[in-house]
């Protein structure tokens, strides 16, 4: 029997260790990884230097790891095992019973320089505000919490939620912006006053929900209209929109990292909501200078397919322009990271022309030059709390 067992073992071993390389080679395909949202590593070019130093073999190992046959299935199985094992952290996410959260390291650092950093950032925005003012516009900065901050109380007691840092950054930045006279809309504090209701943020994505975006929109537009009566803004209210919850399963950024395997203990699932004005407003849309479909939602073709946060505006775009041909209304420029996307699907209804920039992708002009060229009536910066003090990406406006 021992001999039979050994023969069977050798057969299975040979089958596995010979078919994997053959199938890998046969199915090798460069391109993006859907779940990881990154490009798979391509096989490096063979070079004498690379072979001599060993870099070629290191890169080839990475390429092989990225292309091994059945990779998605393997990673999915590995994730399923980790979830079944009840690990508190899977694929670098804190797995709660009803929410997925970012992992924060167990580190601390001095906050001594926070005030000076916040003051420097506020001064930059004050000079931006001055520039906008010189072009006849007004500036608003909308600070939005990330999902892990919003649900900071959902972390298990032994996990780091980094509230000590986010609270301090928010307080320092808010105070510095006030000192510099830059209008700052603190979405976290407004939501906290409402008791931080669950429905304002996704459980499986690091963004706010459409309801969260709508609440931020109301906060923003209420203040813009109140402080700029000359613009004759009459923002649409909740009653002016038709809200629809899409039936499609939602693939949030966090659950995507878990291969859409995570289910909350209460059985509730995140859903995507959209809203369209009850009274139709004709508009045209351009993305990076090219005409696009006149739509602010990238809707799925069927009701069963997975949808993600990129439903709003079709995801992050370098430059988008929406024109409604209502010259009596003011124009707006909104810039920032992906938190702008669902806001844009609402904002355009209140303006004649809505321009949107994302400086992670847009590089044609500086924000200053853009403002000088188009002279928008209102400029809105939307950034999450982790980027308040950052000078890169959408923090670099010069």
């Amino acid at each position, binding site marked *: *029997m*021992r*001999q*039979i*067992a*050994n*023969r*069977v*073992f*050798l057969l*299975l*071993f*040979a089958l*596995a*260790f*010979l078919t*994997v*390389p053959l199938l*890998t080679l046969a199915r090798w395909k460069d391109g993006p990884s859907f779940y990881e949202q990154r490009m798979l590593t391509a096989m490096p070019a063979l070079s004498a230097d690379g*072979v*001599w*130093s*060993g*870099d070629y*073999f290191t890169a*080839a*190992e*990475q390429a*092989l*790891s990225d292309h*091994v046959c059945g*990779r998605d299935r*393997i*990673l999915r*199985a*590995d994730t399923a*095992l980790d979830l079944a*094992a009840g*690990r*508190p*952290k899977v694929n670098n996410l804190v797995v709660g019973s009803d929410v997925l959260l970012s992992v924060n390291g*167990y*580190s*601390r650092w001095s906050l001594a320089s926070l005030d000076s950093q916040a003051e420097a950032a506020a001064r930059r925005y004050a000079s931006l505000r001055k520039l906008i003012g010189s072009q006849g516009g007004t500036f608003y900065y909308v600070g939005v919490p990330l999902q892990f901050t919003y649900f900071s109380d959902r972390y*298990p*007691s*032994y*996990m*780091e939620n980094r509230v000590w840092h986010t609270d301090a950054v928010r307080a320092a930045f808010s105070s510095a912006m006030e000192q510099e006279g830059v209008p700052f809309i603190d979405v976290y504090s407004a939501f906290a006053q409402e008791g931080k209701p669950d429905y304002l943020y996704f459980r499986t994505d690091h963004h706010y929900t459409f309801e969260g975006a709508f609440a931020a929109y109301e906060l923003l537009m209420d203040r813009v209209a109140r402080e700029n009566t000359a613009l004759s803004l009459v923002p649409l209210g909740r009653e002016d929109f038709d809200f629809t919850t899409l039936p499609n399963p939602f693939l949030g950024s966090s659950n995507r990292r878990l291969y859409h395997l995570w289910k909350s203990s209460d059985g509730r699932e995140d859903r995507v909501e959209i809203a369209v004005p009850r009274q139709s407003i004709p508009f045209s849309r351009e993305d990076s200078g090219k005409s696009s479909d006149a739509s602010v939602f990238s809707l799925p073709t069927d009701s069963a397919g997975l949808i993600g946060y990129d439903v709003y505006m079709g995801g992050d775009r370098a430059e988008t322009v929406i024109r409604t041909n209502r010259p009596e209304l003011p124009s707006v420029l909104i810039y920032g990271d992906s938190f702008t996307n669902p806001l844009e699907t609402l904002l355009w209804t209140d303006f004649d022309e809505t321009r949107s920039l994302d400086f992670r992708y847009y590089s044609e002009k500086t924000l200053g030059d853009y403002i000088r060229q188009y002279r928008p009536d209102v400029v809105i910066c939307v950034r999450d709390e982790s980027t308040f003090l950052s000078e890169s990406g959408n923090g670099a406006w010069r």
Partner: protein
Amino acid sequence: MVFSSLSFLFIFLPLLLAVYFCPLCRSRRSRNGILLAFSLVFYGCGGWRALPLLAASVLINYIFGLLSAPGRPERFRSAACAVGTVCNLGLLFLFKYLGFVTENLARVLPAVHRQSLLLPVGISFFTFQGLSYLADIRRGTAEPERSLLNAALYLSFFPKLTMGPIVRFGDMAQELHRRRETADEAALGLQRFLFGLAKKVLLANQFSRIADAAFAQSPALLSTSMAWLGVIAYTLQIYFDFSGYSDMAIGLGRVFGFHFPENFNYPYIARSVTDFWRRWHISLSTWFRDYLYIPLGGSRVPLGRQILNLLIVWTLTGFWHGASWTFMLWGFYYALLLIGERYLWGGGLRRLPVWTQHLCAMAAVLFGWLIFRASGVPQILSFLKIMFGGAASGALGGQAVYELLEYRWELAAGILAALPVRDALRRRLERRRDSRLCAAILCWGPTALALALGGLAVLRLVESGFNSFIYFQF
């Protein structure tokens, strides 16, 4: 290239097996040639720049091995062996210790500048094999290898090339010329390989995450529990990392008909530090015993000299592991413990209950690994302070709770696998071999377990690129 890489598992190994067992290549010479060629490819995957050094080491040992062979005048043989030894040690010094020596000299002599060369993988292992080869020929306990192909294969055979075990020429010489590769041996070898892979990927790599987190944590944030957990995790990591590699090396050797000596024998069940070193990295400790301790006089010299011999041997054992003061300190620490056990408290220790002996030995080993893993003496002292209640962040931190919960399955499996549970289970099953179930488990159990663990290891390998071996740096 490492065993726990996809390129090894899915390209190198299948290709080697296919070529080696190809019916066209049945002669011993061609099979040895195939193994040598693949060994060079294996080593070359770390960069071809390391190949000239390996070639130099092979040529030095081959030539001086022939020159040290019996049949020549004794003084000539001694001189040849000495020159070969100096060449081996010279290469080791140049590539491994020059940076350390010049760095420390530069601290006292400003005219000296730090010089260092890139450390080639496995240099300590193949150099020690070369040294033992020359010494064995000089002593007459081994015949020199006349075939350059076989000498090169002995020194550079890929399973043991980069991380041991340190195989003496006498253990391999016969099998270089005559060996039998059978399906049963191949199956058992591959099973051993998969068990080793699982040890490395499923256990050692996971424990390294805990240990790295603890040793990277700032002292102000490190809790007492996390410090203990970090040291325990490192204790498990280094065992499963190195013994896993040894299992893979021994298993692969078996596939090709070679039988390498065991390198580990459940070191964490040792009852004393002396016992621990009989069970840990056996090929290294016996190397130092046979080629340094005994030639120095061993224990057949006056007491003072015996103590000096132990201090020399163990400080050098530490230094062999790496060119840093902490490794020397680690070796010195074991020298003191072994001297103490032999001359002071050994008798008293043996009279204690067995579990107390285990506890004392494990405590000594744990602190040994703390010295081994720490970045320097300040970190050792800081860890000791925190481990014994001087933690600024308290006794129980959230990080320790998290690490325990995250890796609870691995910790449980690791503790079980570090104990001779498998052997006990096998003995029990063999006693009941008459039962069909027990016989079936004995036959199919290892097969099924090896495949399952191998499959899980591949899952983890694809998931994570984290797979460098600790002993690679030595």
